[in-house]
């Protein structure tokens, strides 16, 4: 089924954080935490300080501590743009600065 995964692109203002296919993503939206699944309706939302985490196709969790930014979902592709973001697991590939 086409809707089993979605494209996710998480970027901070100075570098890209993570890009890939994900089964679900949760974001700290300004009105409270929000979970996004594939084929969500198009949305543009402001996000606050918190944790963005994406679960990729293999079930691995990619989490980032972020400060304010926004997320937009459109044609099964999610873009999360934040001011600053740090990988909570200290994954060397994602935090290489």
């Amino acid at each position, binding site marked *: 089924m086409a809707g089993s995964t979605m494209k996710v692109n998480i970027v901070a*203002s100075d570098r890209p954080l993570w890009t890939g296919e994900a089964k679900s993503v949760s974001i700290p939206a300004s009105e409270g935490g929000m979970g996004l699944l594939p084929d969500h309706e*198009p949305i543009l939302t402001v996000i606050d300080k918190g944790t963005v985490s994406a679960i990729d196709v293999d079930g691995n969790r990619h989490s980032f501590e972020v400060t304010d930014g926004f997320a937009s979902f459109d044609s099964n592709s999610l873009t999360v*743009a934040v001011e600053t973001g740090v990988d909570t697991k200290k994954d060397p590939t994602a935090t290489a600065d």
Partner: protein
Amino acid sequence: MASQLGLKSRIASTTSLGKIFNAQEMIASSHIAKARTVALNAKPYSDAIFDAVQALAAHTEIDHPIVKSTEHNPRVAVLALTSDRGMAGAYTSSIIRETESLLARLDKVGKQPLLYVYGRRGVSYYRYRNRKIAATWEGDTDQPGAETAREIADRLLEDYMKTAAQGGVSELYIVFTEFVNMVVQKVRVLRMLPVELVRNSDQKADPVANVTVEPVENDKSENGAASSVAATVPGDVTSVAKTDQTSPLYTFEPNVAKVLDAILPKYVQSRIHECLLTAAASETASRQNAMHTATDNANNLIDTLTRQLNASRQASITQELTEIISSADALNKEEE
């Protein structure tokens, strides 16, 4: 002809200067790679913001102070991006020249320009001349981070959002150097605020999906003197290629106004960051060029001086020989 000792010391000092120039050139070329990486890293973010602003412009009637100024206010902000260090050829002086002519143009049309300066060289130039500067930033002009852009954008947006009575400004111009390639860097004047969103309704398909976000160029270039150096920015027009695709209906959370409040300042910030990055790349490139020329000049000077030294040494040897021979001749004649 200069003394041999004098020539020798000039050759020695030129050699050591040449070494410094050469080192500076190599440092600059290594920084260029870094500047490129930083610019590439910042690209996805500015793309994301641009897409979001596009989506917003396509789905809502944007009515926000960042997009159109509401009140009449003659005060305008001018931000000049100069370098922290010298040894970059005409980099800072071209920026200052263009800033001066922009200030004069704005003055002429009855505006009151406020000066904001980034970079130690520009700051010291204006401080020395006792010019009023609204705000300055220094440090890291050759590799500006997102934090620097945030600081600058925060201050400028704060001043922009103030009313005229509070000492706010109604427009923001940025004078920066655009990186065209390693050899060519152009000084540009960009009107950053208010951000101008233009709808291209003349295109086919869905007109709402075609949005041109165009921070409009400075249109007051009747002063032709400087415009050869500083063209305005028509290349800044970015149009959207999503013609055949109807835009999906977006949900905005918490609401459109809040989303605009959050995204438009970020858009401005990321645009300022872009300007800083292209200015940094230009600075590094013009430093490399200047240092390359300086190294060449030093080498030419060393060649000329060495030739002079050799000539003067040979002249003195010839003179000594002549003296010895003539005195020997004189002695021989006396013996006869």
